[in-house]
């Protein structure tokens, strides 16, 4: 669901595995092992006591007081100055821009609800823009994709989604780039902004959908605002990162010429950071697309609505059809913005095949063609609405549906027994180990483990996070979520190691896998849920699969990069000394890529956690369910809000602990510190 971009320094995979002094390592192991033993013994003797279980229908006083927010907004909407002068005008402004683009591309409010620019004009105009900012290849891709939307019978829906993404990206950039520049130039701003961005990215999207819908009411305006909140962090981070990473000597050279701060920004920092900024735009655009899809839950029109309807009626064919559109749109947006960032690279000018003059002439000529098609699409019905006869959508839908029905009937025994085996064999015992241990014991065990991994500071952070979760009244639900998250992350790491090693060892495998991983990452989570829902039913198992699919590509990529970065000399030495491939992998490559593996585990955890709420749509319980229920049932509003916060604190806890584990055990060596973010 999210693209958690953190501007981490690349992992250092040099020869840092200087063995820790024996004594120190054993103390850490001792502490961890001791904590584990205490946990198991405690579970055996005390299980079922002090579990802090809160039945799903029950609320704590805190939840009830959060519920009041709902009533407060309702009674203050009309005459509170905050609403009168801030929220209502803001909503009106966003609404106006969103409706402008919707009217242009998807459906105007007049007459037949045809857009101002019909399908033919839209295809031509967007392809031309792709040509202007990118190249001929992405222009062709754009044209092909949009015509394909028409063939799928989803042109209007895709146009709605596109219009909303466009609106959201415009607002995101207007907000994000200046903030990013500020954070890049002034370290103090960065210090304030970074934790806020961390918070924004760990907060599950559903959590702010509910209050946003309450304040801004449902509709495109709230959808855009939610999307901006979700999509802004990448561009802010990358802009700041790009500006901060300008080499010191370049900056000093410029300073020695006597440039003022503003001159330096415009002539040096922005141009040099341009490529990173455009990368940020790329990331934000992808995030915006996945959020606009989810915002269908608060009446954002477009492809998301089709997917939701399919999810509710278990209609695999329709879901796959709409999902295909979303993936295609994601690919188009990704490739066009990537091409734009290539073009923004310093020196891209020189590599061009045609002269700049020639290029401008070409653009001008093709633009005239675009104008003609736009005019056509405004005056001719066949060019305004996509011809209905050219619709292969229904055929495609029924084809996929019958294929999935065949799978469901014939694989039923296999899928069900596999699901039951995993659930009963692994998930349930592990979950009860977490939920049925007395809370005080588990808190103690986790804090001791944190101390062993990262000292007093980490222990304090961990204790605070756990205390907040207990205060929020959701301890038991948090443990259910933790169990699912850890199981999913374990599988992600297994996949990460298997495929990462294969990719790291062979360029061919890498070339084959990478596009698939990219596709997996760009695909909004909603899309692949429906087929799995068909195969496995609404269970925690399905939710875990959703998390795995979402997180595995990141883990695989990080592992592969770590393995590939090991110096060839070391490998040569290992091979020439007669090691078998298995020995090379287990004795050289994996130990040397240890930091990458730890980073992969860290990112895998965070990504899996980001899917917790989406997983609740297909049967996960715990915090994710609380958030979803709080979103759709007003009596549970406060509990949902609290559950969202609990997810954030669980995320902080897991992030800090895995980062500490990733750091080299010899904490005294500064170069071995895990890169802070």
């Amino acid at each position: 669901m999210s693209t958690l971009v953190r501007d981490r320094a690349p992992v250092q995979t040099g020869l840092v595995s200087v063995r820790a002094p024996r004594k120190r390592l054993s103390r850490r192991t001792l502490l961890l092992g001791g904590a584990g033993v205490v946990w198991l013994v405690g579970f055996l003797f005390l299980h079922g006591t002090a579990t802090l279980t809160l039945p799903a229908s029950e609320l704590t006083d805190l939840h009830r007081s959060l519920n009041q927010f709902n009533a407060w907004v309702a009674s203050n909407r009309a005459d509170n100055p905050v609403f009168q002068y801030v929220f209502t005008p803001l909503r009106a402004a966003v609404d106006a821009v969103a409706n402008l683009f919707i009217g242009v591309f998807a459906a105007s409010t007049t007459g037949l609800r045809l857009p101002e620019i019909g399908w033919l004009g839209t295809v031509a105009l967007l392809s031309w823009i792709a040509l202007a900012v990118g190249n001929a290849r992405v222009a062709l891709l754009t044209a092909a994709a949009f015509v394909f939307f028409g063939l799928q019978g989803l042109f209007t829906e895709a146009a709605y989604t596109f219009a909303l993404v466009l609106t959201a990206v415009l607002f995101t950039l207007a907000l994000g780039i200046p903030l990013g520049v500020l954070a890049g130039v002034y370290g103090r701003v960065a210090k304030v902004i970074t934790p806020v961005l961390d918070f924004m990215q760990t907060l599950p999207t559903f959590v702010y959908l509910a209050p946003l819908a309450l304040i801004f009411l449902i509709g495109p305006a709230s959808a855009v605002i939610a999307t901006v909140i979700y999509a802004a962090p990448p561009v802010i981070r990358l802009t700041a990162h790009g500006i901060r990473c300008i080499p010191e000597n370049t900056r000093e050279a410029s300073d020695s010429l006597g440039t003022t701060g503003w001159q330096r920004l415009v002539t040096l920092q922005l141009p040099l950071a341009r490529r990173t900024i455009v990368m940020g735009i790329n990331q934000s655009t992808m995030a915006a697309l996945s959020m606009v899809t989810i915002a269908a839950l608060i009446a954002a029109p477009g492809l998301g609505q089709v997917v939701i309807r399919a999810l509710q009626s278990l209609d695999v064919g329709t879901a796959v059809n709409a999902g295909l559109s979303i993936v295609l749109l994601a690919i188009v947006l990704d490739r066009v913005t990537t091409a734009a960032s290539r073009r923004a690279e310093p020196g891209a000018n020189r590599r061009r095949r045609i002269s700049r003059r020639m290029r401008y002439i070409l653009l001008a000529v093709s633009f005239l063609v675009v104008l003609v098609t736009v005019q056509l699409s405004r005056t001719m019905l066949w060019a305004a609405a996509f011809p209905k006869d050219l619709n292969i959508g229904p055929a495609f839908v029924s084809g996929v549906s019958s294929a999935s029905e065949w799978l469901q009937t014939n694989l039923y025994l296999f899928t069900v027994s596999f699901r039951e085996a995993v659930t009963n064999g692994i998930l349930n015992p592990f979950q009860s180990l977490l939920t049925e241990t007395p809370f005080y014991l588990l808190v103690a065990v986790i804090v001791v483990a944190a101390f062993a991994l990262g000292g007093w500071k980490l222990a304090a952070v961990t204790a605070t996070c756990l205390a907040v979760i207990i205060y929020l009244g959701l301890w038991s639900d948090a443990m259910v979520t933790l169990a699912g998250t850890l199981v999913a992350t374990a599988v992600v790491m297994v996949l990460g190691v298997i495929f990462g090693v294969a990719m790291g060892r062979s360029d061919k495998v890498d070339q084959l896998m990478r596009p698939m991983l990219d596709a997996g990452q760009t695909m909004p989570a909603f899309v692949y849920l429906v087929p799995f829902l068909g195969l496995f039913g609404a269970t925690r198992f399905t939710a875990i699969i959703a998390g795995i699919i979402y997180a595995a590509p990141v883990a695989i990529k990080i592992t592969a990069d770590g393995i590939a970065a090991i110096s060839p000399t070391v490998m040569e030495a290992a091979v020439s000394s007669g090691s078998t491939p298995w020995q090379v992998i287990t004795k050289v490559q994996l130990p040397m890529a240890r930091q990458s593996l730890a980073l992969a585990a860290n990112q895998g955890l965070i990504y899996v956690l980001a899917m917790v709420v989406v997983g609740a749509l297909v049967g996960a319980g715990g915090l994710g369910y609380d958030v979803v229920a709080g979103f759709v049932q007003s009596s549970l509003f406060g509990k949902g809000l609290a559950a969202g916060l609990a997810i954030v604190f669980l995320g902080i806890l897991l992030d800090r602990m895995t980062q500490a584990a990733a750091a080299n055990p010899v904490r005294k060596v500064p170069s071995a510190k895990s890169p802070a973010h």
Partner: protein
Amino acid sequence: MSKAGLLLKRTIPTLAGTVAAALLLAGCGGATVNQAAAAGASGTPCGTVNVALNAWVGYTANAAVYSYIAQNKLGCTVVQKDLSEQISWQGFGSGEVDVILENWGHEDLAKQYITDQKVAVDAGPTGNEGHIGWYVPPWMVQKYPDILDSKNLNKYASLFATSESGGKGQVLDGDPAFVTNDEALVKNLGLDYKVVFSGSEAALIQSFRTAEKNKTPLLGYFYEPQWFLSEVPLKKVSLPAYTPGCDADAEKVACDYPDYKLNKVMAKKFADSGSPAAKLLKAFSWTNADQNSVATDIQGGMKPDAAAKKWVDAHPDVVAAWLK
């Protein structure tokens, strides 16, 4: 410097081009196919009607028939939006939703949006009577005759246990957005059960169908009117009888669901607009059998629009009365 301006230089022609295009289009006059068609098709003051679409087939049936008539007999433009029940109500304030076609109770929302905020008005009953409850597949009643009394449920709890219910019996619920007291019922009636959500009406129906076919035990949330009951006549478990006010505190409910007189709700603005579609909404009223016949057709693979047309063509008198 040239590098500094590069991005800008590339953006400016794009922007300029777009502006030029807009100007050119404006110059070419407003006679677009869109507006021309609008002028031709009009003659009725009916504009756009935004219909909330909640996620069960019975609702879809209501919405299909209403939309079909509004579109084809009144010339309105109908926009259907997939929304969950409570979110739909929020749309009355923003103008995103004009019509809710099947409302199940929701007294708190009615108070908030109709009485307090005055953005919505009641548009009268749909003629359908709704029942929510716990159901079991018919084979279970034959084998365990006393299962239909909630007092005996604990005896059978182990029968209903699944890998999701943590050793207790499972009560299968639908969409978390549906009206439900089941979590509170399980707790307050002291039942050894756990509520598990299947996520949707479709999933509930599939589960009940499989349970009856394979003779596997299942206890689940279900409701009438519902087309599926004519395919598999599920049996309702009797919970402690409903008395007015026994469900006032959501956390303390220990009684059956009330009988719902299902009604329609519309936005105040829409009601005051004098649109013929608002008049149609007030008049819209039919029987459970009517709804089930349309729902069965939709479930059988017919497009909602086609199913609505079939029903409308078969019931000209009813429709004529609505349009009077």
